[in-house]
């Protein structure tokens, strides 16, 4: 092929590829702008017996915070009368009049904020997150909040993610922005390693103790944390994203199980902290979520699907069968009295 011919082919291909790239981008931008009008409800984070969540329904309310009375969940067809708010959250949690919303702060800088919300879901404080938001938790009393993000993946086509977890006292504004700096005790010994990661905080009722995942050297542990003492003590192995029951006696978590999908190898288990008995929840599907307690006997969790999540409920004692609680929803948070 002559040089002119090659340049012509390149030029034509450039035009075609540019048309594809620009055309698709403009089409996607149009798609995002359509159907933005919709009445927005104002959530009440003090009102008990409600479930709040990120709505992933493919409509104008996608990725917005929505609320539903617990009594209105679990309809057979999965439709519901969710009250969609104005607020966009990617990860959300709330308790006792305080909300924590992890949201996109600046798309150009790819920056995310942890936004503390008051009882009417109005922002009261912003904190910049390191990396991509993953988990959010508010303590039962509504004073302490914690969030986890994924940091890294900076190498060429690399996926060397690490996590970063922060705890904030909303009363004093004290921010512990990296729980990896806590003293870690494993099997009674002080443990240090470059690859320690901490994620998925769940708070106890006293708002000082908490549970979280500590990972190092290919192992994951359920660890009990103490905010005042800045310590993390491992109590159980192979447990991630813990969620403490309302009475503080049990922890629901995802456990790595062999013979499952290697990219999502977890199933949901409940550990009784007094008897140390581990019970598998009667849902055999692999999940990747931090569970939430609907009541003293029921855990709820998201199962990912085709660009959306559904929230399911199962009994914590391993009996029964899972039931669909919310269609098109992620990040469920149950408000209690």
């Amino acid at each position, binding site marked *: *092929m002559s*040089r002119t011919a*090659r340049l012509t*082919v*390149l030029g034509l*291909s*450039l035009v075609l*590829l540019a048309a*594809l*790239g620009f055309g*698709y*981008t403009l*089409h*996607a*931008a149009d*798609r*995002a702008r359509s159907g933005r009008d919709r009445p927005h409800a104002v959530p009440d984070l003090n009102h008990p017996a409600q479930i709040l969540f990120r709505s992933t329904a493919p409509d104008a309310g996608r990725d917005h915070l929505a609320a539903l009375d617990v009594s209105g969940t679990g309809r057979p067809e999965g439709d519901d009368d969710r009250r969609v708010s104005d607020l966009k959250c*990617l990860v959300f949690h709330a308790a006792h009049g305080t909300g924590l919303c992890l949201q*996109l702060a600046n798309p*150009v*800088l*790819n920056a995310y904020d942890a936004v503390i919300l008051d009882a009417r879901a109005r922002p009261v404080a912003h904190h*910049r997150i*390191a*990396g*991509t*938001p*993953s988990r959010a938790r508010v303590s039962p009393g509504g004073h302490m909040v914690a969030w986890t993000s*994924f*940091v*890294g*993946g*900076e*190498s*060429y*086509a*690399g*996926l*060397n*993610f690490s996590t*970063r977890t922060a705890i904030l006292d909303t009363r004093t504004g004290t921010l512990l*922005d990296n729980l990896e700096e806590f003293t870690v005790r494993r099997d009674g010994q002080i443990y*240090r*390693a*470059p690859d320690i*990661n901490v994620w998925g905080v769940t708070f106890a009722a006293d708002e000082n103790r908490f549970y979280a995942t500590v990972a190092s*050297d*290919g192992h994951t542990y359920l660890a009990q944390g103490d905010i005042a003492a800045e310590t993390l003590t491992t109590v159980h192995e192979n447990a991630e994203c813990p969620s403490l029951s309302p009475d503080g006696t049990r922890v629901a978590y995802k456990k790595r199980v062999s013979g499952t*999908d*290697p*990219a*999502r*190898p977890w199933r949901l288990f409940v550990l009784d902290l007094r008897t140390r008995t581990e019970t598998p929840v009667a849902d055999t599907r692999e999940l*990747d979520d931090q569970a939430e307690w609907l009541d003293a006997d029921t855990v709820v969790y*998201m199962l*990912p*699907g*085709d*660009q959306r999540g559904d929230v399911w409920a199962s009994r914590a004692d391993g009996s029964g069968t899972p039931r669909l609680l919310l269609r098109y929803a*992620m990040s469920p948070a149950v408000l209690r009295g």
Partner: protein
Amino acid sequence: MYLSSSRTNDAITTARTDTSSGTRPSRRARLLPVVAPNVLALGMVSLVTDISAEMVTAILPVYLVVGLGLSPLAFGMLDGLYNVANAAVRPIGGHVADRTRRHKPVAGVGYAVSAAGKLALPAVAGSVPLIGGVLAADRMGKGLRTAPRDALISLSSPDDAQGRAFGVHRAMDTTGALLGPPVALLVLWVTVEAYDAVFVVSFCFAMLGVLILALFVREPTLDRTAATRRKVRLLDAVAVLRAPGFGRVCACALLLACVTVGDSMLYLLLQRRVDLSPALFPLLPFGTALAFLLLALPFGLLGDRFGRGRVFLAGHLILLAACLTLLLPLPGAAAIGGTLVLLGAFYAATDGVLMALAAPLAPADLRAGALGLVQTGQAAGRAVGAVAFGAAWTAWGPRTALAAAALGLAMATTVAATLLRGRPAVPTDPHDDTDRHDGDA
């Protein structure tokens, strides 16, 4: 469009044939940073391919975590496996290219696989195993194309200007890596977070790379007479380690890789040492890449002038200096700036320079496989080094581990210097093996 047009008369008559080291630029032209059209074309291929790849890398965590609600740690666990596959595929891609004497199609398959992956990713969004599969295929594609591509660069350049050729290529490659993330974020911003649009635009860039390769990269003619052609067997691909000097370079690369502290570890240490705002973390690799981009060509030229072995060794002393920067009680800004510049300089003095050092020592008809071996050896060494550094950190704490790494670097560089000294100096001594196949020696 080519820098090489400064070779006024030659450029017109030989532009279409001077892709091998068969035609050498005049001595006067060699003083200027001029490279073969093939190297520029390969540089352009890498530039647009890196835009494409880094667009996806920049948004992948967000896409997996925020868009699909998955935790990338699971993919991170598989990452080690992917890297093993990537490293293992390199000599295979190189050997196939040598055996068929067709570097361009083998590299092309690698580029095409990665391009197809860009469209496949949003299409398999619902299935976690398929996402893992597409990411693995992308990594294999990269592994497949790297050795034949580096062999093409090397075979298209005269032996005494290998450093320059690799320097130009690595600078263009890194330029693409720097442009990718801003392009991706721009698309996300315009489309209000439509990740599928990012994948489509990334695919367009990847296709452009494949096209430039197909249209403007020439397969070098290794020898003019069919009589000197020998059949490349699997045994030859390993026996290349016995080629004079080449085995020593491989040993040095492996040894030094074993004591190389990974950049992610240095960033982690930097974060602990300096109280850095989390929002600035993503800028650390950016700073390193910028230093790499600016220094790749200067270090390549220094290598051609003063010996590529020397520059390669000096690069490891620069890494040693980066370790010391983190150990010294410097103010925060100086520690950050110093570490990033030194780390970028380390890559500039070792990445392309190692290829430029090793390539002329391997016979031309075994070169792609040979470069694949060096790269795999280096990857294996770095994996060993990462495990050793992690163990040292666990046993002694981060500062002692870093001091130990610095000591290891100093000792390994000394050993490597002794090893390389016994090797015939490439830039001055015309090497028998390569020239026999060049045809014009």
